[in-house]
């Protein structure tokens, strides 16, 4: 399948979804006004990937800022990964946050509490 690579902007994150080398990363800032529009491409990609997933899938998130409209889109994204995991696939999510950033750590905990998929918080 085609990889999805999106270069970062001041309001949107860098996205690397490369099934060939098994790298799935979203990093930087996610503060667009139209979060739904931005995340649709990613959600569609995951739907496609879910048809023929790799033996193991680790999604890494390393966000500096994200707005509340992105937070709902991120949950939608996590739900798709949760669904893939429940289908028997080896799926995990890594939530990286700056060691100083209590808010980002706390938001990671919020997601972890809502999800039934391996969700690891990593302080960096």
């Amino acid at each position, binding site marked *: 399948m085609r990889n999805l690579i999106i270069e970062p902007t*001041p*309001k949107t994150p860098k996205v690397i979804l490369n099934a060939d080398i098994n790298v799935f990363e979203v990093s930087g800032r996610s*503060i667009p*006004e*139209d*979060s*739904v529009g931005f995340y649709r491409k990613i959600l569609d990609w995951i739907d496609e990937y879910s048809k023929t997933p790799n033996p193991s899938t680790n999604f890494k998130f390393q966000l500096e*800022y994200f*707005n*509340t*409209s992105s*937070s*709902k*889109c991120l*949950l939608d994204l996590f739900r798709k990964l949760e669904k893939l995991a429940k289908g028997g696939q080896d799926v995990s999510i890594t939530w990286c946050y700056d060691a*100083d*950033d*209590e*808010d980002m750590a*706390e938001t990671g905990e*919020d997601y972890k*509490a*809502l999800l039934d998929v391996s969700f690891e918080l990593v302080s960096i």
Partner: protein
Amino acid sequence: MTYSYYKNMQQNNIIFVYQGEVTADLVSSILHMMENKLDGDGEDKKIKKKVFNVMVECLQNVYHHLDSADTTPGDGEINDRTALLMIGKEASDYYVITGNHIYNDRINNLKDRLDKVNKCDKDELKALYQAILNDGELSEKGTAGLGMIDIARKSGQKLGYDFHPVNDQYSFFSLEAKISRN
């Protein structure tokens, strides 16, 4: 005239003020400028992040509100697509203040939501945030109804607000978020 504006802003510790239409590009520009200022002032990284987060939510809240507001051509002196955006910096706190017109019939609903958020302690805000995140349908504009809760959580303080009656149709709604510098 100019001097009185200057003195007024200085005495009220206002470091940024804007009045007019709010576009996505304007929000980007303000965020960029304020981020540079926070960096230039050598503000603590944690405080800087909180201020930035609160600015994003407050400014985008106004942007989405105005984007969805009905236009009212011929409405005389009120242009409900413009807003006031202010940022203040005092010795102990940053302030992010927004003001925009809202229809009078929307006041009660908004006031209830604000009062509900202000009544919550830290743990209750966390629970409310998770509940709305999990259950709330995203509105068309992508404002998940989480903005006010997020501002209260990140600022760690009560939200200040006011509804100033303008006429039979409108009031001027102002929202004030305070972020402690300590």
